[in-house]
């Protein structure tokens, strides 16, 4: 087995070292992240494991805070070469006194790392202390990869930093927003490291491949979560006797209960998506995501949004008015035995047996009304879940692309997904719930794969 790559993560205090490590290792609970200065005061290792084996061993270090004075001090030391000076400093008394924290950084880099990543907050001006940091690190004679953080923030001074890095003799660099990394920038990070560590090129390529595969698997798993929930909601069917339906109060209560069930499915999908991307529901970094606030679940039955979604599906303004049924606000997004579901039931009968169709006819004869979800709700739900999955994949900050579902933002390509959900309408038994094994049905699993693939095709926002 090859030795794991050892990389020291260095940088000024609060540049985002620990955040970078959380992102790279996908461990939301690693270290302590806060904007209090100097949160990390010890050197700590954390492993990136691929399939259980250590691929990269990162060393989280304290901030190199007093660089100007340290550089001054290093210059006073008598030694032939610069690395020699660094070693002399580490042996000397000041390494455990004035510059104890800095010594930890340099010790980690010189003694236990193959390379360093220096995390730079590009919102900061290029001050002498940062130049001193770069200079001291370069004295350790280890490859250094600058990681430019906060590159998408308003106050970023990217060009100045590019210039400063060139002046310090650092020609490789990677732009990496640790909280909201670009898609694939993690892979680029390792790819670029290979230029600094030619001997480790193959190993790094292996890491890049494994990470690509993992990302792909996570995305597909997320699509399956969304697909399964969409099937649940499409399969939902609740019967209500005619006399109860005539009573307006009971009808409203019934509709509300139905909508609550839809929201319950949506929440379950949110929890599952969080789990797929290794987040906890109460994660600080997620706190600002509007998708998680629960507000969007109400959007699913917002008549305005439904109308727009209906237009996307070519349904015109006929939402809630399926086949002679009364459309009122309370019924938004739900329909009573509309023709579409009957058609779907007929379609489903071929594969799922005739029982659903028979029961439907029986209900018709007995005057029992059946409530189902209309396509626009499915479209909105699919759109929301996909947006959430994209945001989680990017670990996005809400501020960067705030999500509000308006008519422009519903992805028109998703009607393919909604159409694919047709067979689920004929299978009320496919809805997952307490003590129900709906999910295990082979036909349902096949449909889940189909819908997941359709969602996957719409995953890249650029494709919209």
């Amino acid at each position, binding site marked *: 087995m090859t030795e794991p790559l050892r990389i020291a993560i260095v940088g000024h205090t609060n540049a985002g070292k620990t955040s970078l490590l959380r992102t790279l290792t996908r461990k939301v609970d690693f270290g302590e992240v806060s904007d209090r200065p100097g949160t990390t005061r*010890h050197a700590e290792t954390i492993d990136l494991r691929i399939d259980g084996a250590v691929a990269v061993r990162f060393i989280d270090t304290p901030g190199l805070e007093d660089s100007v004075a340290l550089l001054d001090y290093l210059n006073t030391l008598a030694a032939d070469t610069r690395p020699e000076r660094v070693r002399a400093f580490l042996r000397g008394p000041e390494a455990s006194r004035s510059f104890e924290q800095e010594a930890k950084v340099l010790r980690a880099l010189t003694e236990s790392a193959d390379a360093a990543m220096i995390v730079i907050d590009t919102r900061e001006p290029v001050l002498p202390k940062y130049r001193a940091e770069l200079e001291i690190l370069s004295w350790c004679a280890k490859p250094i990869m600058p990681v430019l953080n906060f590159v998408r923030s308003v106050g970023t001074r990217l060009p100045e930093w590019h210039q400063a890095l060139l002046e310090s003799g650092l020609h490789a660099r990677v732009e990496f927003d640790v909280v909201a990394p670009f898609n694939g920038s993690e892979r680029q990070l390792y790819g670029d490291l290979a230029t600094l560590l030619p001997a480790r090129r193959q190993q790094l390529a292996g890491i890049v491949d494994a990470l690509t595969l993992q990302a792909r698997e996570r995305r597909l798993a997320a699509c399956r979560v969304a697909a*399964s929930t969409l099937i649940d909601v499409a399969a939902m069917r609740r019967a209500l006797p005619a006399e109860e339906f005539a009573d307006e109060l009971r009808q409203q209560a019934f509709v509300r209960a139905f909508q609550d069930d839809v929201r319950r499915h949506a929440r379950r999908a949110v929890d599952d998506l969080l789990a797929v991307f*290794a987040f906890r529901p109460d994660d600080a970094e997620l706190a600002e995501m509007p998708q998680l606030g629960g507000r969007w679940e109400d959007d699913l039955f917002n008549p305005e949004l439904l109308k727009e979604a209906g237009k996307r599906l070519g349904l015109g303004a006929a939402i809630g008015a399926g086949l002679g049924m009364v459309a009122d606000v309370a019924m938004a997004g739900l329909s009573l035995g509309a023709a579409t579901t009957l058609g779907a039931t007929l379609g489903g009968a071929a594969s799922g047996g005739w029982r659903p169709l028979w029961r439907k006819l029986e209900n018709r004869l007995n005057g029992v009304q059946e409530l189902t979800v209309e396509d626009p709700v499915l479209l909105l739900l699919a759109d929301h879940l996909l947006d959430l999955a994209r945001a989680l994949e990017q670990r996005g900050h809400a501020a960067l692309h705030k999500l509000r579902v308006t008519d422009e933002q519903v992805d028109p390509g998703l009607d393919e997904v909604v159409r694919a959900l047709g067979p689920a309408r004929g299978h009320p038994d496919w809805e997952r719930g307490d003590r129900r094994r709906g999910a295990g049905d082979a036909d349902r699993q096949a449909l889940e794969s189909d819908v997941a693939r359709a969602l996957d095709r719409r995953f890249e926002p650029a494709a919209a």
Partner: protein
Amino acid sequence: MTAQPAPDRTPLTTAVVLDAVRRIESDGPLDDQAALQQAFRTRSTRAEQIAERGWLLGQRLGLPAELARWRGLGGGVAALLAVAMALAGLGMARAVLGEGRSINAIAAFVSLLGLHAAMLAVWLLALLLFQGRWAGPWLGRLALWLTARLPLERGPHAPTLLQSLTAVLQRQRLLGWLTGALSHGIWSLAFVIMLAALAFGFAFHAYRLTWESTILSAAFFQRFVQVTGALPGLLGFPVPDAAAVQSVGNAVAADTGVRAWGDATSQRQWAWWLMGCVAVYGLLPRLLLLALSVQRFKAGARRLGALEMADPYVQRLLQRLDALEPPPQVIDPERPAGGADVPRAPHAAPGAPGSLALIGFELPPEAAWPPPGVAADAVLLERIAGSARERQAVMARLAEARPAALLLAVHAASSPDRGTARFVRELQPHASRLALWPMGEGGAARWRQWLESEGFTALALVESTQDAANWIASAHD
């Protein structure tokens, strides 16, 4: 834990057990801590660990044992069904037996092979139309269902396991081949039984094989026997010739019994023809298809095994396995009281009362300097980016100017660091009053916290231009 007699662990049984465990877990998680730990310790890759965990849980639930029981039971069920099929065939043949010992040979041919031929046609058609998606012939499915449902020592999870088996096989497009193999196997067995019964009957009873018809001619029967007998004939079965066919035709209707009996040779030929047809058109194709189904099934089962990782359930398990990895290790611990000890310069002689120095430290280039409305009358107004030379220069000029009060402006949004702390300590001897002014939006609270934690109790903190003006003015009181 005692080691159970391990039932064979093949890719197929593993996949089925994993699927069943997953189904059982969809009702609520199982207590898998021990299994997860054991899998984590004993297997190296994540996929193997997840499979091992599922297998261990399955063992606890008795799933592999249940599968092994099916394997034992399956043969019995198949034999039972085969006997039933054979009896049905023979019974039908019996129903067309004539009075006494007379057998309508052609009707016997149809009743022995008719059902089989019809089902075989359905099987072939479905195979062509639905490819692998077809669940297979009903006979095979019935055998599978019976095996799982028979109450002999049935485990509590048998129905789930059956669902899993069908689901796993259907996903791999193998279910049709398994049920096909079962069905062909049952039919093969049934034909063996039929042949044995026929051979026994013909060996020890003197039957009279005849044909009869109201509308068909003797030529038709001659042709029929000739065509059907061609293939068995190739294998050495005797075939009744035209004369023999002619001689037994419409025997019952014939007025003299002598002709109808024909000669013994032709009767023997008739019996061999019937058995030959059952063997060649019944047993042989079923045996060949049995071999094909078994081969396809085994080949498919060997391809099985790779765990689908792009799955929410698997991803959750992956994360739980990741959590078992050793936690991050501190390699260079924090040492308490490692505070920087900057040499304290003796306090300079106090400057002129009311004199003020304003120093901007590490301010961003776009910050307005000097800050409008403050310190127009400062004895020293300096802004430095923080290099060592600048710091020394400022110290020198401070020593010269000797201000009574010193206001240090820093960038509020930046993090306070120990470099700043060092600078503050160096400034302290140069003025009797010292205040820190974080300029710009936000971060003041962080700077206040920092002043406390660094022990700069003598420093005031001003948060706005107004504050700063007040602080400067307060010196005059």
